[in-house]
């Protein structure tokens, strides 16, 4: 297992180096796809925190993405307070929404939580489309700024006007998010999340306040989805009510399950596979929902642990290796 573990580390270092070195030689089209992959991966990681690790299936993440994108866009466009304050405001507003909707929703278990989050997602979709004076309605919201140039020493400024710079900016956020979630899940707090996923009543009987832990996990998850939304708004410069459609949440759920929920690398692998393949094959946009649905169905029926989960069960058997499972890697019950 130790050998496998180090192999995994080396391979991820390799992937990271590739992610940094390769984009300059790719064209603008492929770079823009990589940016989207990074943003959806962040959203997928945020969903993994609440669904994969804490065991609460949320379909409300499209609403949090839209809340992040719109609050960032509205604050930046209407108040003109610069990139970073608007970014911070977007994260705080989305986290607050996550907290407020989490209080009633997380009291419920199983289907009811799923239903309330789905209802929330659809409601936010309706509001974004219908509140024309505030959100711009179907016309969308334009003129959202890119990040302010970062002054470097020697009088040089790191600007974000090119696609490549934006890619590195988003990649940095993806790495920060993944690192944050890894630390969170490995911590004692994260272990209580995993315990709730396994058996909520048992965890409660051990004296853990499961409601507050679930609420914390949900709020953090919402905030991360909001950050992904703000990045999307900043990258795209225009946002339309389409991002608030609830299928964004189900698509990201498909990425998560195909990659492997409750694994650290699964969300990124799943997003990469499901976003990159249709782009490379030049699939008609309307077929994407269909393809995502079919792939999700195949995985949930035949391989619910996803690509990474499948590897993790197959690899040790092939090598005859046995080891103790590492923190944060458990089969989802």
């Amino acid at each position, binding site marked *: 297992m130790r050998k496998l573990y180090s192999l995994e580390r080396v391979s991820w270092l390799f992937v990271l180096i590739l992610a940094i070195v390769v984009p300059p030689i790719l064209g603008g089209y492929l770079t823009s796809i990589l940016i989207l992959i990074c943003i959806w991966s962040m959203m997928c990681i945020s969903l993994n925190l609440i669904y994969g690790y804490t*065991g609460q299936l949320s379909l409300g993440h499209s609403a949090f993405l839209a809340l992040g994108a719109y609050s960032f866009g509205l604050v930046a466009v209407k108040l003109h307070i610069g990139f970073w304050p608007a970014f911070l405001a977007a994260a705080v507003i989305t986290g607050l929404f996550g907290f407020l909707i989490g209080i009633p929703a997380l009291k419920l278990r199983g289907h009811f939580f*799923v239903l*309330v989050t789905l209802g929330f997602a659809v409601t936010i979709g309706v509001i974004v489309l219908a509140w024309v004076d505030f959100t711009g309605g179907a016309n969308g919201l334009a003129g959202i700024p890119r990040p302010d140039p970062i002054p470097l020493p020697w009088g040089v400024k790191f600007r974000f006007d090119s696609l490549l710079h934006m890619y590195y900016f988003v990649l940095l956020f993806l790495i920060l998010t993944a690192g944050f979630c890894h630390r969170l899940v490995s911590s004692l707090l994260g272990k209580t999340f995993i315990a709730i996923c396994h058996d909520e009543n048992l965890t409660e009987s051990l004296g853990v306040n499961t409601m507050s832990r679930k609420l914390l996990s949900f709020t953090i998850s919402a905030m991360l989805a909001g950050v992904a939304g703000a990045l999307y708004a900043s990258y795209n410069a225009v946002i339309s009510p389409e991002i608030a459609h609830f299928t964004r949440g*189900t*698509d990201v759920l498909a990425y998560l*399950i195909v990659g492997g929920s409750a694994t650290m690398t699964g969300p990124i692998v799943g997003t990469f596979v499901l976003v990159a393949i249709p782009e490379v094959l030049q699939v008609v946009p309307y077929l994407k929902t269909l393809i995502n649905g079919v792939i999700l*169905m195949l995985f*949930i029926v035949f391989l619910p642990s996803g690509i990474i989960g499948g590897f993790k069960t197959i690899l040790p058997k092939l090598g005859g290796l046995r080891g103790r499972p590492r923190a944060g890697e458990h089969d989802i019950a």
Partner: protein
Amino acid sequence: MGELGQYILNGISQGCVYALLASGLTLVFGIFDIPNFAQGHLYMFAAYIGFYMVTLFSMSYWLAVILATIALGILGLLTYGFIFYPMRDAPKVNCFVAALALLMILEGVALYFFGTETKWFILPHAKRILTFGGLALAMQRLIVIIGTLIVMVSLQLFIKRTTIGAALEATAQHREGAMLCGIKVSRVSALAFTVGTALAGIAGVLIGPAVLLMPTMGMGPVLVAFSAIIFGGLGSIGGAVLGAFVLGLLESLASGYISATYSLTFVFGILILTLLFRPKGLLGKEVWRP
């Protein structure tokens, strides 16, 4: 009368659609404990099937109603056989995800094959508007109300008066107990899925000529139907129907007096309030396996 009466009439006819969807959902929910999110998309599918049968194959509308209902029933049976039967021992949360995947597949098929533009399902008789006592009702809406009544009565007779219906109810009440009595639970489940989906089919093909057809038309009604079964009390068809009519009336009144665009928001508010203050619903006897 006047305005208020008109809104109440609209609410009743809208409530009929929700009642059909909600009773189909209750059948599946009662036996499997799976909220079938795809119910609304199945309803959309039935509306399109009816539309194509009438426009492309120039069938009579009544034949289209019967054929679309049968087609949806078969689709429900296939769904059960290929998706939910293999997953019967899987964790519940995986079944939700499978229902979502089904929703995505149906929406994708509809977007690709039926197109994104809205379609008018115009029938000669549907243009007629009946007026009585200052109230107006489209002919098709009257057909929806009468059709719902017929379906509801026959569903009730089927469940209460036939042996198969009794087996269905027994399985919903206590799965293991039903098995011990010699009921073949997997067959009963297949039947519940077929009937539940066929109910969505009837709802879709009845309401089709009264609304605009689009691939996303099912999402609003299915959320209202879910809210209705939670509001009315889970596990009882009577509760589901009552909840459906209350929410249909509420939606009609809210869109008449407040705002039409936000009517889903009011329904969602009711859902949250019910879950917070009366989780067993209006007619529910106990909280449905929390």
